């Protein structure tokens, strides 16, 4: 579903991603772990289409189509969703208005009829139940005055409503206490399905106790330096990132 080939990207002549290769198939959960500054968030933002990054070379295919040539909204229409590390507060726009606009934009782009207010409420109430959320979430302005946990829950809620096929979670665990972390992970697990792929970007192994990945990749200095199964995350937790650095250095000498 997602193929990243030799992706190089940076900001203002400063290279950050230095040749990423990664393939995510339907139904798979891939975790990308790495220390601060390794390029994790850059990868997420480049995939979602945020301005300000220069793609210097490489290719990203989403269902065989060139992802990097699409506008952010077109990527969303194709089924890509990024849960933000820092969800944005938008005073004056209610969550329900925002979500209905988003759902209808996607339906319109796919040549489907728009949902009217009543259809939408029925649809959205099911999602609220699925994720065990509070009903007043809908009437509140998007993320305005939300706690860190509420903001992240709202990201997962949007994900549930938009029904993407590929979900990119950018450090969704940052700033969460253990209860909020569990709630968010439960939400993600409820959305796992054979048709849906996940790219879970995180600094800590902690989140992966709750969202158990099929593959773990270690990102360092803009490259994936090691890939493995979920046991790789445990090894990292026990030994830290230093161990990988040493192993790489040894490999280079040896």
């Amino acid at each position, binding site marked *: 579903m997602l193929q990243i080939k030799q992706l190089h990207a940076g900001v203002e002549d400063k290279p950050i991603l230095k040749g990423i290769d990664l393939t995510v198939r339907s139904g798979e959960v891939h975790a990308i772990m790495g220390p601060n500054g390794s390029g994790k968030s850059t990868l997420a933002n480049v995939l*979602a*289409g*945020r*301005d300000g990054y220069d793609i210097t070379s490489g290719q990203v295919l989403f269902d065989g189509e060139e992802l990097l040539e699409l*506008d*952010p*909204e077109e*990527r*969303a*229409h194709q089924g890509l*969703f*990024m849960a*933000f590390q820092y*969800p*944005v507060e*938008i*005073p*004056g*726009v209610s969550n329900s*208005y*925002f979500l209905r*606009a*988003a759902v209808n*934009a*996607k339906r319109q*782009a796919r040549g489907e009829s728009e949902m009217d207010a009543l259809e939408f409420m029925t649809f959205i109430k099911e999602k609220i139940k699925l994720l065990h959320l509070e009903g007043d979430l809908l009437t509140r*302005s998007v993320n305005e005055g939300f706690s860190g946990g509420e903001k992240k829950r709202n990201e997962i809620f*949007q994900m549930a409503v*938009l029904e993407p096929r590929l979900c990119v979670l950018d450090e969704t665990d940052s700033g969460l206490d253990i209860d909020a972390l569990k709630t968010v992970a439960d939400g993600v697990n409820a959305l796992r399905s054979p048709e849906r792929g996940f790219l879970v970007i995180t600094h800590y192994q902690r989140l992966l106790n709750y969202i158990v990945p099929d593959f773990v990749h270690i990102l360092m200095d803009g490259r994936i330096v090691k890939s493995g199964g979920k046991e790789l995350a445990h090894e990292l937790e026990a030994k830290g990132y230093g161990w990988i650095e040493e192993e790489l250095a040894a490999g280079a000498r040896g």
Partner: protein
Amino acid sequence: MSVSLEAPAVGLDSLTQIASALPPTPLRAAGLEAFRRSGIPTTRHEEWKYTSLRELAETSFVAASATDVAQLDLDAWLIADGPRIVLVDGQIAPEWCRLGIPGLDVRFGDRLTPTDRERIGSVAAIDATPFSALNAACHAEAVMIELARGAVIEPAIEILHVTIAGAEAVAAFPRLFILAHSEAEATIVETYATIGEGVTFTCAVTEGTVAANAHVEHVKVQRESEQALHIALTEIRQEGDSSLNTFSVTYGGKLTRNDLNIFLNGSNLHCRMDGVVVQNGGQVCDNHTRLDHAFPHCDSFEVYKHVLDDQAMAVFNGKIFVHLDAQKTDAKQTNQAILLSPSATMNSKPQLEIFADDVKCTHGATVGQLRSDALFYLRSRGIDETQARAILVYAFAAEVLEKIECEPVRNELERLLYEKLQA
């Protein structure tokens, strides 16, 4: 060679002629004298620095006086199904009014009492501005709106000011006095509108008092045509333990100047002065507000938001005076603008003068474009850039309208905001 910057006399002459044609009263005489002294201000006048009245000075006006008032179609301007006061060309149109509501007395013409006549001009001084003087000189009749003690009037007292445009440039001078007695509660919405094509000049004065424990919401809506010149003074004196929320909403007009002065004449008062300005094309809107905190323990909140497109220009000048005795004042002023075009202009001037030492006063002004992080957030959810911008601009302005308590008025202003932003 010297270049004369003096304004031509044609506008001034035509306006003084309108005044001279009316039967003399002490108010009109005093108004005319004050207006002759001040004349039409130019941009050299500090209070008119950014807003040029050249067109006003160069146009010859006649007094607006509609015929066939009963034939007008006013539905497009009316909002709420409640008491209604309609003024056409600055004069009350009894056939359009809906009165006789308990607790609300509306007096004009012969029904004005001697006390009413004393009140008119007692809150808004005749020479408060050159145009309050002009209104005093030229107004055809004042309307007294009295809310009885304890009266609760729903959904809103609606006042519609219509000016009928035509081949000749017309001027109208509506003048109101709102007298809210203690414990009265009401929303008062004043809409200004134009029918027809042509240059119009509305020079309005609304003054009023809000007595102890009264709760008044005042909404002024500028929906006049894009050939309309509009200069209005609203001046209100608020007594102890009352609350007053004012909203000034400007969508229409070619040139709109609002002076809003509120004097907090007691303790434990709450006062809100909010504004929404949405202008495009060559529209100009200039809001001058003045708030006087004269007694201790009063709160005031002021938020003005502007959305300016094309070559639109707006001015916000917000004065807050905290007098020596006004300890424990809590005053907060904010004004914000979003410029949608590189040729739109915002001139912003907060002006706080604080003479008491135990007060909380803050002010902030921002001028900018839409937040790029919010824009990206919406786009990443599938909303295209055009719609994302529209949502953010709407939300920016609607955040002020959301505070209007009267639901039909709020809904209508939100609908009109949406319509204006589509333009």
